[in-house]
């Protein structure tokens, strides 16, 4: 017993078993939902809070077929609008964070200059900035993008700074003895070593970015995943809200797995090292 218990720590699992294990909680959740939904419908056949499968299916139909008035597919329109905002916001935040973080990671002067303010900005909940952003930029697209960018940039900057600092000094000295100039050290030694870990940081940032996106869409928008959820909330349309929430989770999952795969494919050396 104790021998096999010891094997529980640190032993890698075969792929199939890993995937199957991961599915168990999902199935349990679905089962629990089905059970409680069924119970509620026995008490009250008109229950709207936990719609049954047939109602969920009807909700799904509603959001995936063209709307009678506008001819638009809700889910599609909202997804495109949200992902566009997310992409632009993350892109802008990333551009700021990469530039600043790289410089701060490499040059101690730049680090001393910006480290306090970046850390302070990272402590402000971005949603507290939302009114300011709305006042300055109005309530249209740009304010949502700016919120996401401002929300993710400070934390991401600090992350990238740390990664930059963690590159062994020996490697840099070595590059100099091989005849590299400072710019060559940055471009050929530091940057490539930062990239895979930057992807890790981005993966962790996607979560907060969604929060800012959904929050800003809830307050003011004419399309978007967050907008739709808040609109149908008034009609208690749980059969639309739930598919939307699951859809958001799926998009997040795909983004996360996609980035992980990109990192493994582009930087095989960075992943093999973790085994040691």
């Amino acid at each position: 017993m104790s021998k096999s218990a010891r094997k529980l720590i640190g032993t890698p699992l075969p792929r199939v078993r890993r995937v199957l294990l991961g599915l168990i909680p999902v199935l349990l959740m679905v089962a629990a939902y089905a059970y409680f939904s069924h119970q509620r419908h026995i008490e009250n056949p008109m229950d709207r809070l936990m719609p049954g499968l047939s109602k969920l299916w009807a909700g799904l139909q509603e959001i995936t077929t063209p709307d009678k008035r506008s001819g638009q597919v809700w889910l599609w329109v909202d997804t495109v609008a949200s992902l566009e905002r997310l992409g632009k916001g993350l892109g802008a935040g990333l551009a700021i964070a990469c530039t600043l973080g790289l410089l701060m990671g490499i040059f101690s002067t730049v680090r001393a200059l910006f480290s306090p303010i970046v850390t302070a900005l990272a402590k402000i909940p971005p949603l507290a900035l939302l009114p300011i952003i709305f006042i300055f930029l109005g309530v249209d697209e740009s304010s949502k993008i700016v919120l996401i960018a401002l929300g993710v940039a400070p934390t991401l900057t600090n992350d990238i700074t740390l990664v930059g600092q963690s590159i062994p000094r020996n490697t840099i000295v070595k590059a100099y003895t091989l005849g590299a100039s400072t710019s060559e050290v940055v471009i050929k030694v530091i940057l490539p070593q930062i990239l895979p870990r930057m992807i890790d940081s981005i993966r962790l940032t996607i979560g907060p970015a969604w929060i800012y996106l959904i929050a800003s869409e809830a307050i003011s928008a004419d399309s978007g995943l967050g907008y739709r959820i808040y609109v149908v909330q008034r009609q208690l349309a749980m059969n639309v809200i739930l598919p939307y929430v699951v859809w958001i989770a799926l998009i997040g999952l795909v983004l996360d797995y996609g980035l992980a795969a990109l990192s493994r494919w582009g930087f095989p050396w960075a992943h093999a090292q973790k085994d040691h």
Partner: protein
Amino acid sequence: MSDTAGDDTKNSAVDKAARAAREAARLAAEKRKIERATEASAEVVTASNGRPSTASVPSTPLLDCSHVYQRYPNPKGGFQVVLNDINLVVPKHDFITVVGPSGCGKSTLLRLVLGSEAPWMGQLSVRGRPIDHPDRDRGIVFQKYSLFPHLTVLDNVVFGLELDGTWLLQKWLTWPVYRNTHHKRYVEQAMGYLRAVKLDEHAKKYPHQLSGGMQQRVAIAQAMAMKPDILLMDEPFGALDPGTRESLQITIIETFQQQDITVFFVTHDMEEALFVGNRLLVLSAYYEPEEPTQQGAKIVMDVPTPKDTRTSVKATAEFQEFIAEVRRRGFDPACRQKVSEFDLRAAEAVRKGA
């Protein structure tokens, strides 16, 4: 409080001594400059006579450290002097090994020669040029992190060769042409260096896929590809198991014998130091100070080592006796020689030769 004050007076006394030494160093440096000029003209004469220059012909020393001091800030305040008046002249094609008790400043001296650190006082120069920052003249093999983890073995060696002064942007814009001309040539050269350390079959692997010994072989090839004036090695084989270690020792001896290179090899393993090098430096802070305030390591021994490069030599009585002698003089805190008693035979030989 009184402790700090004591430290301060101590330090100021050291300061004073060091200032005097700095002045002496300046004079000595000037004198050497004149000597060097004469030597240079002598060399020209020899060359015009058509005679090949031999060991008997004096030349500019490859590495010249004169009155080098180094100190670091002490966490308790004040400074800790680590190196005290290091004087060292290294001719071309010398294989110097440096040993000493741990923390005596071996690696500090190496960093000063590398240029990644500046001395508190004194001058270091290579071929008469003052050392300013790490550059191509001095190659380095560290114990760890010598290789770029994101590059394959081959690319690690090509890395330096490819830094040929062409701008990166130009390289990228003309990549199809560059790859078939310059890059191709560098790859061939790099493969040559990898063959020399018997790693050409592993060229496409990443460093993490190699054993520690193989990684250090790549690091040697990577440094040698630059044809540096001096190859600096900071406990390069310290993390390897004994068998691998010995085979790497033979690799570096072979490299030294086949190529016109000077090696500066820091190690804590005495056997290794005697075996690979041809001149041994013992750095130690255990000596009878001339003034009570004197602190920091000095070169307490500078002697030629046995020339035998068979591994069996390590087992002989003479070899072991030599080690015992070095241990007594450099590593035993109880045994304190006077500064005038230091065994500096190799240094004197160099001076006579120069």
